[in-house]
């Protein structure tokens, strides 16, 4: 997409994010949660966003719904089908939320209201946005419960959240997000709170839904393994910036950023002897209110040299559909 002039790329995209900044004023200074991010999301695309806690990935997601915490300042541009969302009124955003852009939350234990039945919560969005009748909404909800593989949908419809298991609830949360047939589905770590086996089921479900519906999916996670399972394209975020962006195969075969490489090496192999010490990236993520002047990853980077510590590298294309923000262009492997 870097081949097209920016305007054309933005018009072709479902969601086009240009130079997005999300900042918070704190007593210790201005905090850049998202720091100049550019992304295009194509219709039907499955985009993965990886990064550690505090890398700004959730803030990026919330910005697309205008749901950042009060006090957040958004600058730049987020265009959904050409409509500008940054600075749009609450009323405009409300007509999009749930209807065109829907969100799947992280923890199915708390994302459902304990006092309302599954049916009520499931049909709420449909009835609110499309004014569907109770009977029509119910029909649609039962279809969806079936689509997310919930057995006995009729019985589940009348139950309360506490009567369902965690995996079941996450299926409900997914069904809730899908009910208005949104164009974009935002998923914030949808599998983190689940058992590993249930995790695999939910990922399989997402992959299946993605081929059945035409919705584009943005999946945010800290788990590169999850990304490898489902995503087409990956953004790697660090300290509010995109440090590498590539198609999922390229990212695993030919990572160019030392941080991506570090994340990749942190995946524990399932076969063979277990390493004596689990691989990890040394050091801690930087304080977002006091970023170093150069590359934010430089203090933890084995390849860093002088230039890295002086000025931050920009995201530059390294191949078609592959960009990395790093000055080092030698081979990655063992740090020198």
């Amino acid at each position, binding site marked *: 997409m870097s081949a097209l002039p920016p305007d054309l790329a933005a018009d072709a995209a479902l969601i086009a994010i240009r130079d997005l900044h999300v900042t918070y004023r704190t007593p210790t200074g201005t905090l850049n949660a998202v720091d100049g991010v550019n992304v295009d999301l194509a219709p039907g695309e499955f985009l993965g966003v990886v990064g550690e806690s505090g890398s700004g990935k959730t803030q990026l997601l919330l910005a697309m719904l205008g749901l950042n915490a009060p006090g957040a300042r958004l600058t730049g541009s987020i265009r959904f089908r050409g409509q500008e969302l940054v600075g749009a009124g609450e009323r405009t955003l409300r007509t999009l*939320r749930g209807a065109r852009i829907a969100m799947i939350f992280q923890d199915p234990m708390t994302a459902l*209201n*304990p*006092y*309302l039945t599954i049916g009520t919560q499931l049909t*709420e969005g449909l009835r609110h946005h499309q004014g569907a009748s109770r009977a029509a909404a119910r029909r649609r909800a039962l279809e969806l419960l079936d689509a997310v593989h919930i057995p006995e949908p009729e019985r589940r419809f*009348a139950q309360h959240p506490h009567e369902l298991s965690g995996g079941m609830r996450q299926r409900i949360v997914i069904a809730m997000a899908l009910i208005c047939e949104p164009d974009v589905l935002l998923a914030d770590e949808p599998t983190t709170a689940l058992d590993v086996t249930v995790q695999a089921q939910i990922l399989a479900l997402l992959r299946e839904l993605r081929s059945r519906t035409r919705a584009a999916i943005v999946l945010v996670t800290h788990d590169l393994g999850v990304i490898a399972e489902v995503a087409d394209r990956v953004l790697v975020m660090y300290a509010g910036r995109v440090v590498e962006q590539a198609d999922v195969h390229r990212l695993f075969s030919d990572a160019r950023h030392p941080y991506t490489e570090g994340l990749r090496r942190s995946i524990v192999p399932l076969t063979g002897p277990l390493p004596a010490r689990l691989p990890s990236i040394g050091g801690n993520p930087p304080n977002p209110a006091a970023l170093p002047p150069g590359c934010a990853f430089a203090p933890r980077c084995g390849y860093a040299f002088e230039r890295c510590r002086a000025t931050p590298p920009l995201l530059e294309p390294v191949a078609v559909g592959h960009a990395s923000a790093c000055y080092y262009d030698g081979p990655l492997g063992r740090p020198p």
Partner: protein
Amino acid sequence: MNAVRDAADEPRGDVAADAAPTAGQWRRSWERLRRHVPALVALAMLGLVVLLALLVPLVSPFDYATPDWDALYVPPGTAHLFGTDGLGRDLLVRVMWGCRVSLLVGIAASLVSVLIGVLWGGTAGYVGGRTDSLMMRMVDILYTVPFIPLVIVLTVLFGRNFLLVFVAIGAVSWLDIARIVRGQTLTLKNREFIEAARALGLSNATMIARHVVPNLLGVVIIYATLTVPTVILFEAFLSFLGLGVHAPLASLGTLLSDGAHHMKSHPYLLTIPAVFLTLIVCSFSYVGDALRDALDPRELR
């Protein structure tokens, strides 16, 4: 209470009928309540007292005000079931009037204080920020106003007025509810399902009505049922001091106060109103406790 019963009596519709949160939920709550034996006993007791309080003054040949000089201090017996007081007035009718007044004051003042408290505390908690600080500082200031002197001043200014008792009690008891509801709203606001409702594009009003209020209901109901006995005791206390309802009308408080003067010679004048007061207060506490359990859908069956 009626709402619970009505919903429970509705025919068991198919699942489509209770897609609305209420019908199915009320029915389940009622089923849970029905298994709580102490609460049912308390509920029956309360119903009996209310029924007696309403009917007895209507069918009795006596009224609460007219003295009968030929029947002073008649002990409980066939002519006067609960006996008569020092002016020959039938104690049964007077106690029933007392129950009417006490229940009315208790329920009305509690409703008023719950209404103000929920609106005030809910708004402060939901809106947050400066509004919250301002509203809660006002509550803090009102907390510092001493209650008894306030009532005395009000009585001096406006005379002894039945309405005044409501106003005075209501003005004080909403403060607690406002604080509780505010705290509850603050924690609710940060729960993920509220965020999820916002991500669904619901308006503020819909979100409050469907996601915030139902989650406050349990706390508010138990607090309201606990407020009723407190208010009744408050009124009894005010009447005991001579600041509440005035003769010849009686509340349980004034009857107790009168009875206390003749405790040694005519103990029934004290014990009978005391038994009724205890019955009412205990019943409300039990019902409140059971209601809280019954209204929580997570309660195990």
